[in-house]
């Protein structure tokens, strides 16, 4: 199977019809991985050139104009391309997920993009925490649990973007052992900085006034 054949199948109505009987993301992703065209394309992705083809197709489809009355017809193809890229190149993951997240009226592609960004967020946050917090703080226990940081952030409905250059500073009281005791969290990136202060002494972090 050539790249063009795999692409044609992945973007076909018949593929979308076969896969979209799934009700949940897990089932959908399992179904994707059982598709021959997806398998073949994944084998081709060892070549950098093919990765670039897939990425450029993902960018192209994400920017397509759609009929706003309906779900994005490229949703299935975008989900597949995003998964393929994320499975072979972690450096392209955040970029691809960000691009797909901006494609209008997607369902699975939005869910997968959100999941990938969240996973990356946990990795980035964990690594930054490890970098910023000194050994004076007995914080090692929560560094081993990236979920802790995620739980902390998820209490706000709308939050920040994910980008590789995100910088997170967490101000902790001396001898604290849990993120829930954080006094403040400052997230800075290319976008304006956002601050979160711990107003309730627990995990209820509100936006700084």
């Amino acid at each position, binding site marked *: 199977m050539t790249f063009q054949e795999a692409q044609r199948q992945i973007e076909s*109505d018949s593929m979308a*019809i076969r896969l*979209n009987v799934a*009700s949940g993301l897990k089932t959908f992703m399992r179904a994707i991985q059982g598709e021959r065209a997806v398998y073949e394309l994944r084998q081709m992705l060892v070549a950098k050139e093919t990765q670039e083809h897939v990425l450029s197709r993902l960018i192209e489809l994400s920017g397509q104009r759609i009929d706003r009355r309906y779900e994005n*017809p490229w949703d299935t193809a975008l989900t597949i391309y995003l998964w393929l890229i994320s499975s072979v190149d972690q450096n392209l993951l955040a970029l691809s997920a960000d691009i797909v997240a*901006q494609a209008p009226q997607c369902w699975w592609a939005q869910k997968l993009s959100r999941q990938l960004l969240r996973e990356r967020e946990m990795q980035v946050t964990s690594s930054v925490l490890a970098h910023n917090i000194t050994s004076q703080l007995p914080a090692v226990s929560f560094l081993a649990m990236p979920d802790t940081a995620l739980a902390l952030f*998820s209490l706000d*409905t709308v939050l920040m973007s994910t980008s590789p250059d995100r910088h997170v500073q967490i101000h902790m009281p001396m001898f604290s052992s849990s993120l829930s005791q954080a006094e403040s969290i400052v997230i800075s990136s290319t976008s304006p900085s956002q601050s979160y202060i711990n107003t309730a002494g627990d995990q209820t972090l509100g936006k700084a006034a």
Partner: protein
Amino acid sequence: MAVILDPGGPRDPNALPLSTRRGTHISNLPRQECPPARLKGSIVQYSLDHPDAILRSITAVYNCLGLPFAARRTWIEPDHTRMILTEDGYTKLPGGDHAQVGDIVVYRHADEDAHVGVLIRIEDPLSMHRKLFILSKWGLFGEYTHPIDEVPALFGQPHEFWTDRRLESDISRSTATN
């Protein structure tokens, strides 16, 4: 770019206010309608693949869980199946032989809850080989009545039966405790 971290959650303005009998919010989002050509394509495809399944209705807005648990108004991920059944007071039946019209069948694939349907008809109820017919929503596409095993392979196999029936003995017990 802003990201909603809890899509479908109680703070998501696009989610419907939906909860279990115990009051736990059920994460949900109504799905955007599917392009008509694709809906029509699915009717053709599934009539070929599953000739014994009869289309009742077709829209993308709700899924298999949205049918029994949200009155066809929204899409609920199958990950929530057990929470809903438990908090809505359903009881797991020993098997399909004990199921009655109105009970819920849960399909599993690779240890995941992949699909649910509602039992709507039993043929030959007194025989050893009674036939069960299900009403269920097939993902983005149609709502079908179908023999219990006549489903897309992604759904897996009928695995469990659950009921919300309250029998006379339950009423007596409830009255006694009150």
